[in-house]
């Protein structure tokens, strides 16, 4: 006997506690909204997990949580971001991402229309990346206990034989390559933050980078030492992280680092440094000097690496300083961000 199920009111309805209680309402939410958006054979089987074939090679696994505010921003939303971010974490190993999981923590009262928009965007990003979301989880918490919706994703991928990217592989003289302009995501988010709304044409750079990475691996092979995506903390945090892990210093050229004029202007206004601002569709690669030219050319040939640049080199330095020759002619350190990036008084 088929049970009668009331359709979700996707236009004006909202999530309530029953949608996380494990009963019919929850099943309806999962099948009517998430399965609809992510649509694939694994989910359709309705199991608590999904089985998949394991490809030859070393497996890569990652997990990440997304708590972005606002949930929708120019160039993306928390859903597509959750896919891109996890795909990129897999890709930074040089690996091919295969599958994702998605876990939602939803606040009571969250509108179905917004949840659908997020899920649709997530499904579209996963399909575009060719990385299906094959398992997931849904929890609903009381009003006030979450900021709308939090998403956790995990991903698995497979690494080509012999490729082992790691910061301890970097050597003095290696080149530092950056795939494009800095700060687009952070400025797009800030432009929509409460109390800070400003008009800008800048949209988030949120994107899945595994296609770009595949081209880089093909061009650079074992000359690739490591890759990182400079997300929170921006280029500055990522370079310092690499310096600590590789036990090397880095010398960067400010002139060579691409920053869009609108991003630079917004940062000037707010007293922020674009080197500290978050990115969601950029990568940094440290590569041996003999393959740097070929890898850079491969990056420039890919749509997501059009503005790629060689921005500096690794140097022997016990202090592990990330130094930068300023475009003005002086020198400075590029340091980690201290605490939260806070606007100055005057």
């Amino acid at each position, binding site marked *: 006997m088929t049970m009668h199920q009331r359709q979700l009111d996707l236009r004006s309805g909202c999530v309530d506690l029953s949608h996380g209680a494990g009963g019919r309402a929850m099943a309806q939410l999962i099948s009517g909204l998430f399965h609809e958006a992510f649509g694939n054979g694994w989910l359709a089987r309705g199991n608590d997990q999904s089985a998949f074939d394991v490809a030859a090679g070393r497996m890569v696994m990652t997990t990440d949580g997304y708590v972005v505010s606002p949930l929708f921003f120019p160039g993306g939303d928390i859903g597509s971001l959750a896919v891109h971010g996890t795909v990129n974490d897999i890709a930074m190993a040089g690996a091919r991402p295969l599958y994702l999981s998605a876990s939602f923590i939803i606040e009571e009262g969250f509108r179905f229309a917004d949840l659908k928009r997020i899920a649709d965007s997530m499904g579209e990003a996963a399909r575009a990346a060719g990385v299906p979301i094959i398992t997931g989880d849904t929890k609903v918490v009381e009003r006030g206990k979450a900021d709308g919706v939090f998403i956790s994703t995990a991903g698995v991928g497979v690494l080509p034989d012999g490729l082992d990217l790691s910061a301890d592989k970097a050597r003095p003289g290696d080149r530092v390559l950056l795939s494009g302009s800095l700060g687009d995501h952070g400025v797009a988010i800030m432009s929509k933050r409460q*109390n*800070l709304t400003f008009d800008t044409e800048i949209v988030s750079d949120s994107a899945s980078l595994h296609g770009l990475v595949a081209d880089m691996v093909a061009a650079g092979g074992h000359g690739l030492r490591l890759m990182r995506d400079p997300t929170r903390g921006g280029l500055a945090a990522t370079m310092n992280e690499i310096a600590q892990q590789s036990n090397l210093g880095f010398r960067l050229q400010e002139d060579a680092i691409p920053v869009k*004029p609108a991003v*630079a*202007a917004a940062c*000037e206004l707010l*007293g922020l440094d674009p080197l500290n601002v978050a990115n969601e569709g950029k990568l940094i690669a440290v590569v041996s000097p003999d393959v740097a030219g070929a890898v850079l050319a491969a990056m420039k040939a890919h749509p997501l690496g059009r503005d790629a640049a060689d921005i500096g080199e690794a140097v022997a330095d016990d*202090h592990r*300083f990330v*130094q930068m020759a*300023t*475009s*003005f*002619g*002086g*020198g*400075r*350190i590029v*340091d980690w961000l*201290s*605490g939260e990036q*806070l*606007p*100055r*008084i*005057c």
Partner: protein
Amino acid sequence: MKYADEYRDKELAMGLARAIRAKAESGKAYRFMEFCGGHTHAIARYGLEDMLPDNVRMIHGPGCPVCVLPAGRIDMAIALAERSEVVLCVYGDLMRVPGSRGSSLLRAKARGADVRMVYSTLDAIALAEQNPGREVVFFAIGFETTTPPTAVMVRLADKKQLANFSVFCNHVLTPPAMRAILDSENPVEIDGFVGPAHVSTVIGTAPYEPFARDDGKPVVIAGFEPLDMMQAILMLIEQVNDGRHEVENQYRRAVTGSGNRRAIDEMAEIFELRDQFEWRGLGSIPSSALKLRPAFAHLDAELRFAMSELVVADNPACECPAILRGVKKPVDCRLFGNACTPETPVGSCMVSSEGACAAHWTYGRFRDHQRRLAS
């Protein structure tokens, strides 16, 4: 970027650097204090030290409003924020300023105090209107630059008859601080001042005349862009070489002799001088800070909440007082880079990005290593 890149042109900078090297007479020391934290930040961020000859030395002054706020005033703000009825609105970089015993507004917020970061005084007014059941207090801080927006806010709150709004006023004045530096015991040797930029857009150049005329110290008002700084340094060197001591205005695109009349009048109508005010590093300075006039006493948080003045001793190992007077450099402090870093600031100079210690730590500390290697 229009109106920014023009002031960061490498070729012009190289030209100015050559002119500075040509004019700075060997065997002579040129010691200039840049008053503003914004100047300190620009020197560090653009690596200007690398472009100056060894006998031209910049001394970091006390012109960072966060750095000169004493721990007692932070403790007062924390006590206020911990009252259940209060929403305390602050500018972002105040959040991490250390009060006594390692406290800060950021930590008070984590413990449950309702501290909100705002970007403008109007945000605070809006919060008061949106929360009629709460007491919204604006933590006003800054030199003459940020005082006019506070004055506008007070006027607006008064006009709107906001019953749940008040101001914890900590505005301080530039000329008394410069006077305190020159008159302090064992003052640092200064051959001239790079005068405040944004402050001077409000008060003009006239208030600096006594330092040039009576103290014989050249003053060049300069903007915050690196080319502004380089040009101001060259102008100061020329004054020293010529034996002149005048107030010159490098920042003519924004600063006039008499300042912004409307802003000055508005400040005068809303605020009056405090008899004394405690400055971190400079001690108590008479007539150096502002409070609300009696006509606006109903908007004065110190009266409304019967706040009592707290004076707490700074960490005795912290050299912020000497650094703020230009007597010592950040590396002269044994806490620098050890107990005191931007993540764990002990003294206020490490908190704001405009503070001398934070600027040196964030942008310049590789030079200490280079100097050690060279020596």
